[in-house]
């Protein structure tokens, strides 16, 4: 493969602006250069085939019979030096630690509001604040056991936190499967490069869940609650349940009895469940407590949780911190709860709820990315520089009508990495989603899921919007000699 023509308009994860590879990527870049185009194309084909055979799919709604699609996978890995990763990891620990303290505080004493660090008015209008959770003390004081934080790199190389997914973050199974595919495709590189492994995650997740059991000392009964086969992440639910050896259950498999314990319906009769890794959204979790029409959840589940008879991961209500407006306060939370400066900076944010910020957003909407506070999956947002005047005007009206629901960020020159195309390597924008597990201590995945916009110039990396994935290598240069 020829690197000569490769150009990126911004910071590139593999190739520096002088055309030389970053030190951690040197072996990879040299190796790719030694392969013929045909050889590489064959490896891409082998990767696609492996993904299909391994059944790596996500589900697309309303495509008739063809429900499962494979996630596009690019064979060229994204490389991060371990020395840089250590700092990122520390930043993530700090961040998630503070977020959990914040959630606990909000449903407890609300000291951060009383001390006027976080405005009460923002809480009042938060759609993810659950009054039903006030006063609950979940085990270990942890609310968001599993967090997926999205990180992006700007043109100057700074790594920013873009958002924290504290409700039901998905994608971790792709991280593990992408590595399995990469090992099949580039076995030679895994022999000569010190690439840190990622496959510890299911065991770590199991330990995280097991630590929550209300019956310590006994083997915990753990289940993953899925909305079912039509959910876009059903593959991941199956994969995680299988690799942890826990039950994959649907709402109708569970019931809460008069003793406030949660049971599975089994052929041996009811079996008590200690911990539920729920992949069903808060509002559908319990018709007794939230949406009364939900058929995906379990009647009485929140009652059982409040009584401490079953643990839920993530805890209901954890999404209060998964709000793009609350996000802007994370550096202040870190300072407030931990007395530290944030290691990972936030992408600068303008809150439309405050007049000064709102005026700035309305005046500069053409240069900003405007996001609704509570959408995920890249829905409902405006990318100012890519939109026309009519769309700008439309968003000005939306903001004026409901300022609390909008925030804006500068349009970052998202970093790129090469993907393999028919015409050789070509730069595409990407982000990184590491996963963070909180129990007594905090575990961070080695790297995370790199999501890449497969369309040239596109800034949207979500799989539901045509994004793909890459394997992510944390390379230890000191270990290579």
């Amino acid at each position, binding site marked *: 493969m020829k690197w000569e023509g490769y150009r990126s308009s911004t910071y590139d994860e593999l190739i520096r602006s002088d055309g030389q590879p970053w030190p951690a990527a040197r072996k990879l870049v040299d190796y790719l250069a030694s392969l013929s185009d045909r050889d590489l194309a064959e490896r891409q084909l082998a990767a696609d085939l492996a993904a299909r055979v391994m*059944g790596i799919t996500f589900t697309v709604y309303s495509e008739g019979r063809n429900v499962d699609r494979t996630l596009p996978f690019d064979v060229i890995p994204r490389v991060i030096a371990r020395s840089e990763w250590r700092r990122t990891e520390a930043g993530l620990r700090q961040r998630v630690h503070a977020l959990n303290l914040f959630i606990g505080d909000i449903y407890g004493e609300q000291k951060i509001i009383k001390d006027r660090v976080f405005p009460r008015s923002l809480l009042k209008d938060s759609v993810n604040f659950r009054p039903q959770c006030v006063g609950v003390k979940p085990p270990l004081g942890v609310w968001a056991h599993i967090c997926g934080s999205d990180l992006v790199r700007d043109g100057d190389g700074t790594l920013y936190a873009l958002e924290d997914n504290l409700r039901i973050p998905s994608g971790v199974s792709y991280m593990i499967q992408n590595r399995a595919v990469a090992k099949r495709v580039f076995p030679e590189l895994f022999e000569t490069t010190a690439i840190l492994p990622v496959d510890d995650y299911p065991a770590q997740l199991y330990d995280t869940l097991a630590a929550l059991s209300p019956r310590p000392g006994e083997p915990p009964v753990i289940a993953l609650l899925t909305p*079912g*086969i039509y959910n876009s992440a059903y593959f991941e639910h*199956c994969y995680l*349940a*299988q690799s942890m050896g826990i*039950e*994959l*259950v*649907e709402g*109708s*498999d569970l*019931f809460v009895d008069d003793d406030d314990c949660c*049971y*599975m*319906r*089994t*052929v*041996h*009769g*009811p079996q008590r469940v200690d911990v539920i890794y729920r992949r069903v959204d808060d509002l559908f979790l319990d018709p007794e407590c939230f949406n009364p029409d939900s058929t995906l959840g379990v009647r009485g589940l929140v009652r059982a949780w409040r009584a401490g008879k079953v643990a839920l991961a993530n805890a209901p209500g954890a999404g209060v911190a998964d709000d793009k407006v609350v996000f802007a306060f994370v550096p202040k939370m870190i300072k407030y709860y931990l007395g530290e400066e944030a290691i990972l900076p936030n992408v600068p944010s303008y809150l439309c709820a405050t007049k000064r910020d709102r005026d700035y957003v309305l005046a500069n909407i053409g240069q900003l990315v405007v996001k609704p506070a509570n959408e995920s999956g890249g829905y409902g947002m405006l990318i100012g520089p890519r939109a026309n005047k009519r769309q700008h005007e439309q968003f000005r009206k939306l903001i004026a009508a409901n300022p609390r629901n909008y925030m804006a960020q500068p349009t970052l020159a998202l970093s790129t990495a090469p993907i393999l195309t028919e015409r050789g390597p070509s730069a595409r924008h990407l982000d990184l989603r590491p996963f963070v597990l909180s129990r007594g201590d905090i575990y961070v995945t080695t790297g995370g899921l790199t999501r890449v916009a497969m369309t040239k110039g596109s800034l949207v990396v979500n799989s539901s919007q045509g994004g793909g994935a890459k394997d992510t290598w944390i390379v230890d240069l000191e270990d290579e000699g």
Partner: protein
Amino acid sequence: MLSRVAESLYWFSRYLRRAENTARLLGVNSQLQLDLPRSVRFAWQPLLDTLGAAAAFRELHKDAATVVAENDVVRFLLLDERNPSSMLSSLKSARDGLRSIRDVLPPELWERVNGMFLWVSENGERTLARRYRMDLINRVVDDSLTVSGMLITNVSHDIGFQFLRLGTALEQADMTTRLIDAGGSGLIRPRAAEELDAYQAMQWMSVLRSLAAYQMYRRHVRQRVSPTQALQFLLQNAEFPRSVRYCLVSVQNTLTHMPARSALDDALRGTLALASEADTRALVESGPRALMDRIQIGLGELHEAIGEAYFRAT
């Protein structure tokens, strides 16, 4: 094991066996029809009755003549999705059920079942004509048996496997009683009454063939096919896996590996006695229909009892 998963396994094996039996039945009768002289009329109507599809068929073919046409019946029984027990509907149900329990069975099983379903739904119509019909039928029979083989050989014989066995045994017992009934009632109608005896033997031969039982019958009985012997073989033989008695004994053995439920044992004991204690000579005289109906009711009760005991217990 989750009740939902157990129930899906049970239904999966029922639908798989149903698809195979339906394919086999249509295959044998398509062949039989070719062997008959012109003086003998082959009636397709009894096939609809055998598979319990007569009313649904009438509903969709109101204008048809009283004598039903071969193509209509064959399409309805093999490919029509409006017929909930057609071969294609059974394959679809098996596949949809398997989808939600993919995590408990080997992936190649899903691939085979999914592949079979997709092939039949894409190529079924094209292969319906007499000339290609056996290709369609053989493919479904072969693939079903391959899947059964995968289940027996590659899946742990744990509690979940017991539900697969139960489903297969109940479905087969049910289908065998239906075919015994058909054998006694007459697919073949010779114009002259004196030819009846000769064609009756032919009819029982085709019933045996539909259950892959012809060769086993010859080895076991060592006589030419007679109604009494054929009926006895299919109802009471202790060694042929598609006989009613064998299937019920298999249910009995399976239950010893499962949490005990006395209601189930009671339902089973009565039905097993009906099948194994019947006087087959008298049955040929009176016609097997009344007894087959009673056995089918017993199987229905057994099916309900399994549901009560394991699927809806809590």
